[in-house]
């Protein structure tokens, strides 16, 4: 059974159908990439999977359970975490706090206990901080723990978003253009990190424009154009699919 099952999902904004009858599945422990030109509806698809938007029709299953009408924080708690294409960090908090908060918000320690500074809450904080440090150095932000998130360079902010999402220990990690704004060197390094994230037991669903990088690391590719899935399969299959070539390079000229 697939970890994430998107079946016949459509999204309409007024008369404009942004996603039309999308059906695809994300298998556990894989990297699945969604490709498509700008405006194809990739981010809308992400917003529906994470509960930010509700589909007009269709159903989304996660681990066999429907998450179509579940609220955002509950979906996170079920095990889906995401990053944003347009960055959404807690800018006035430190990098460390940005990551630690994930662990603390899901933490078992109740508010009254946290308020009273009980030992359990201090331990929870200590663990969250330790893990946040570890994740920061994993994504390459070691040494920036106490920097204000808003003061980091754009590329670093993207990495910080990834660390924050990873701290939620999601079964499925949704990354919306993680390589946008990264220089080629950092992109390559991030591609390596993504493979290591998959080894950590997180399934990755990825939106990305760097086609060459995607072809290298993705196990499965879904190509979206004008809200419709026009091709799906292994990287080699998709690469040679005439419909994909047409969408990216334009149709034949008679």
């Amino acid at each position: 059974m697939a970890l994430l099952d998107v079946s016949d999902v459509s999204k309409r904004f007024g008369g404009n159908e942004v996603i039309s009858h999308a059906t695809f599945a994300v298998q556990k422990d894989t990297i699945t990439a969604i490709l498509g030109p700008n405006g194809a509806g990739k981010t809308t698809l992400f917003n529906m999977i994470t509960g930010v938007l509700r589909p007009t029709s269709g159903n989304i299953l996660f681990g066999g359970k429907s998450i179509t009408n579940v609220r955002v924080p509950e979906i996170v708690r079920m095990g889906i975490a995401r990053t944003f294409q347009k960055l959404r960090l807690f800018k006035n908090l430190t990098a460390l706090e940005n990551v630690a908060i994930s662990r603390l918000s899901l933490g078992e320690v109740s508010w009254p206990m946290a308020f009273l500074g009980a030992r359990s809450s201090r331990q929870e904080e200590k663990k969250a901080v330790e893990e946040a440090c570890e994740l920061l150095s994993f994504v390459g932000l070691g040494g920036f723990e106490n920097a204000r998130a808003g003061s980091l360079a754009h590329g670093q902010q993207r990495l910080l978003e990834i660390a924050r999402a990873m701290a939620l220990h999601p079964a499925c990690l949704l990354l919306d253009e993680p390589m946008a704004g990264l220089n080629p060197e950092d992109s390559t390094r991030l591609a390596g990190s993504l493979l290591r994230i998959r080894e950590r037991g997180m399934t990755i669903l990825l939106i990305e424009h760097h086609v060459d990088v995607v072809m290298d690391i993705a196990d499965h590719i879904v190509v979206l154009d004008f809200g419709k899935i026009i091709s799906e399969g292994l990287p080699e299959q998709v690469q040679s699919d005439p419909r994909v070539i047409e969408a990216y390079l334009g149709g034949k000229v008679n």
Partner: protein
Amino acid sequence: MVAAPTRWRLLALIMLFVAAYAFGTTFANDYVLHLMVLTCIFSVLVMSHNLVTGYVGLFHLCHAAFFGVGAYVSALLAIHLHLPIPLTFVIGACAAGFSGLTVGLLSVRLGGHYFAIVSLGLGVIVYQVLNNWVTLTAGPIGLSGIPLPPQIPWIRKSIDWTPSIFLAFGLVLVLFTYVVFTRIQDSKVGLIMKAIRENELAAACVGIRTNRVKISAFTIASFFAGAAGGMYAHYTRIIVPEQFSFMASAELVAMTVLGGLGSFGGSIASAAFFTIMPEMLRVAGQWRLESFGALLVIVVLFFPRGMAGLGELIWQGFGRLRGRVVADGVTKGTTSRGVA
């Protein structure tokens, strides 16, 4: 997540309060004492408003209404049912907390400007009820003859409820509020609240149940506003609806912003500023309120982060001064300890 500096700040605050009390009871005349008690009450009010506006980031325009609920409930229970005042005080605070919970449940799903407008409307409703339910609240004339607190049973000496006793209670209430709020601030709860202020969608996307947090903050803040109201009612012994109108709420917003969003120490400073400054400006004669307004404009223009920001600047200045001493010490070939 930081505990140590808070402890120092708390110690400094306690010392400041002891000094204030000593000053109030020995040197100050009744009028100054009165201003000090009012400062205490408004400190609690502004701090609680800051929890909602400065921490969770809900721009909220009906805080004076909760202040009014606390004041009226406590006063009415004491006048008509002759309940003991510590009890009416607690019931008043709880009633305010409960109304905060109700308002929160009704409006918290709305964001930004919409929330501000709804809170404004709800504040107007509370004011109109106080103003027009004449049989219960005596309408615009207000409640007078609110009883003073009783003698404290386990103290033999009889207590004269003089302003200096109120000052003691007021300072304790401020300290209690400050401790509770800074504990919230320093625990993960505070971090979660700040995350909502910073970016609500991102907060939801790290698993924070944002509506629940906002409603909780709102309820806690209303409870403390109600406590301030109860103290106000039994201290001044006369309350009128006008004191809890929209204008009062707007003034609270000004106090919170002037003190510094998210800074509770700043809130206390701002409450003192707002209570004492208009009095000191009496030297400006008929231009008193105009010059106070001008002063507010100046502060906001030059210190957008309020009195807390100003305080930080001064503190950094001190730091730089200290840094220079250390640096001088190093260049002269001595350690900083050697210089000392």
